[in-house]
């Protein structure tokens, strides 16, 4: 009994000592002050020095939180427990949040730097006139492949994946829309297709792909491809850029049948407290020099036209990540298909996964 009580006393004492320590640390960070801005972003998706720069320039203290999926982020914002001033959802999430009245319209008058965004990226279907969102990063979905592991072969289309030589050589991302979209695109259908016959057709075609698929994975796909665990991966372009940094034998291509064009965007949730600060932050990130610095750190493609002048030449001219925007008709943005259809896509994807054994 003695040792028990002693043990518990130690535990409680240590805990309270640590609590004290943390409150002191928080104070040095200035987190227990007034003028704050709460940002909700993907993990490791901003150059940390930019946050410090922003704090210095504006005197606003930043509280930074991270999430790892749009859905989780939306659930958290919906519940309202924390008040986020800026969030960075993907385009289909922006559409959803719009419909669910979770966003505040953005006051463009407060964003003089908005003019630097490439007009190709403004006024897109998921947010006409950019009433609620400002583009942050963008990219495509495509194939990253290791030519040397394929005997020098070059891939150019989705249908190349069904080649018998690629048996057990492909990694897919764990995303229903990406995989179903790939199936639909390979049949020359739109990846927003809701026609049941087309979906079943895509499902059947995907079932024939299973012998070629090594695994269906998440973020670890980057590590796996860089380590040459597989020869081909279906990934987002931002991931591809990182993988190719790791392993220069890899190349990235957007399949010619068409693919997905994605955007991550800055929005202001309805429950925001520091709306003025939010606008200041968005404007800050739109500054070309800041956008360029961010793009260099994160490695994804920036929608900021002026920022591209500050990027290293090889990056800005890399057509794989900055394709000619006038030639992107077969790149589609995901439409919000509605809850029921989305559930259907996921069911089909789940069946596809179960097939794969």
């Amino acid at each position, binding site marked *: 009994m003695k*040792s028990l009580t002693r043990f518990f006393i130690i535990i409680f004492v240590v805990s309270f000592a640590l609590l004290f320590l943390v409150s002191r640390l928080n104070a040095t960070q200035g*987190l227990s002050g007034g003028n704050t801005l*709460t940002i909700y972003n993907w*993990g490791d*998706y901003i150059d940390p020095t930019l946050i410090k720069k922003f704090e210095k320039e504006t005197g606003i203290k930043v509280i930074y939180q991270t999430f790892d999926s749009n859905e989780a982020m939306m659930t958290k914002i919906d519940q309202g427990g924390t008040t986020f001033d800026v969030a960075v959802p993907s385009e289909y999430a922006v559409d959803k949040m719009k419909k669910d009245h979770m966003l505040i319209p953005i006051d463009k008058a407060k964003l003089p730097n908005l003019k630097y965004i490439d007009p190709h990226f403004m006024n897109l279907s998921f947010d006409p006139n950019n009433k609620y969102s400002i583009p942050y990063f963008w990219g495509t979905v495509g194939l990253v492949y290791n030519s040397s592991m394929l005997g020098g072969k070059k891939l150019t289309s989705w249908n190349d994946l069904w080649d018998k030589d690629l048996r057990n050589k492909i990694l897919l991302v764990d995303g229903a829309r990406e995989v179903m979209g790939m199936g639909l695109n390979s049949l020359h259908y739109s990846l927003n297709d809701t026609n049941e016959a087309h979906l079943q057709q895509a499902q059947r075609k995907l079932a024939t792909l299973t012998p070629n698929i090594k695994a269906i994975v998440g973020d670890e796909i*980057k590590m796996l491809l*860089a380590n040459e665990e597989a020869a081909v991966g279906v990934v987002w372009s931002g991931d591809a850029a990182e993988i190719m940094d790791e392993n220069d034998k890899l190349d990235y291509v957007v399949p010619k049948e068409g693919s997905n064009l994605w955007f991550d965007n800055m929005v202001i949730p309805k429950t925001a407290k520091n709306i003025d600060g939010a606008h200041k932050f968005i404007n800050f990130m739109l500054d070309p020099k800041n956008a360029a610095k961010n793009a260099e750190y994160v490695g994804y493609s920036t929608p900021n036209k002026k920022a591209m002048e500050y990027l290293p030449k090889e990056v800005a001219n890399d057509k794989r990540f900055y394709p000619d925007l006038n030639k992107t008709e077969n790149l589609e943005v995901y439409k919000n298909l509605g809850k029921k259809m989305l559930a259907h896509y996921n069911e089909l994807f789940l069946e596809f996964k179960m097939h794969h054994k």
Partner: protein
Amino acid sequence: MKNKKAFSNIYLVIIFIILYAPIFYLMFYSFNSGETMHGFKGFTLDWYKEVFQDTRLIIIVINTIIIALLSAAISTILGVAGALAISYVRRRQTKNTLLTLNNVLIVSPDVIIGASFLILFTIVGIKLGFTSVLLSHIAFSVPIVVIMVLPKLQEMSSSLIDAARDLGASQWQVLTKVILPFITPGIFAGFFMALTYSLDDFSVTFFVTGNGFSTLSVEIYSRARQGISLSINALSTLIFLFTIILVIGYYFINQRNNRPNGTGVKK
């Protein structure tokens, strides 16, 4: 007899090697000058420097430890009460119902626990942050404590209690001088299991946290999309080494102070 000793030792060594293989792998790469856990490029201490400069990360680590310690301690107390409660219930039906209810949280996927707790806290009006995370961790750790403590209670022969009572012990004395010492191993087991559950948890914490409060698991999972930097390896190595020193140190201090444990009532 000697062969048996050798065999058992070899077996244990193998188990330990397997258990620690991934840990050493992580530690090894925390010194990698390359960016990933593949292809050791050269030795560097840069990642460790990065850890100490990242105040936000340090705050997160300390928060994680606080939550783990407090939730483990409180859930152990609650869990022991629970185990006592279950063992004292007479009717088989009630006992089994309580046990089933107890285990619901263990079987439920974390997402569901997280989501339902979130709804609960929102309804009750508890602000998300330290409090909500602490309550949640206590909540899901109690069942495992009960599971660890209950077998010990069942092993205990009731004649011990009867004997104590015959000798004039009060309710409190029976508890503190007979029951608790007997089940102490179970209590410690429960405590450490609760600690484990808390340190490792991601989903539940993610759902119920807010206002800038975060734990290490949430931070690590959030970074997965961008690729986990080796500074996390460095951080884990530091935490691990610190814990080992703590554990070994505490153990040998205890050894020196206590006499060896017998199977029976403590004096």
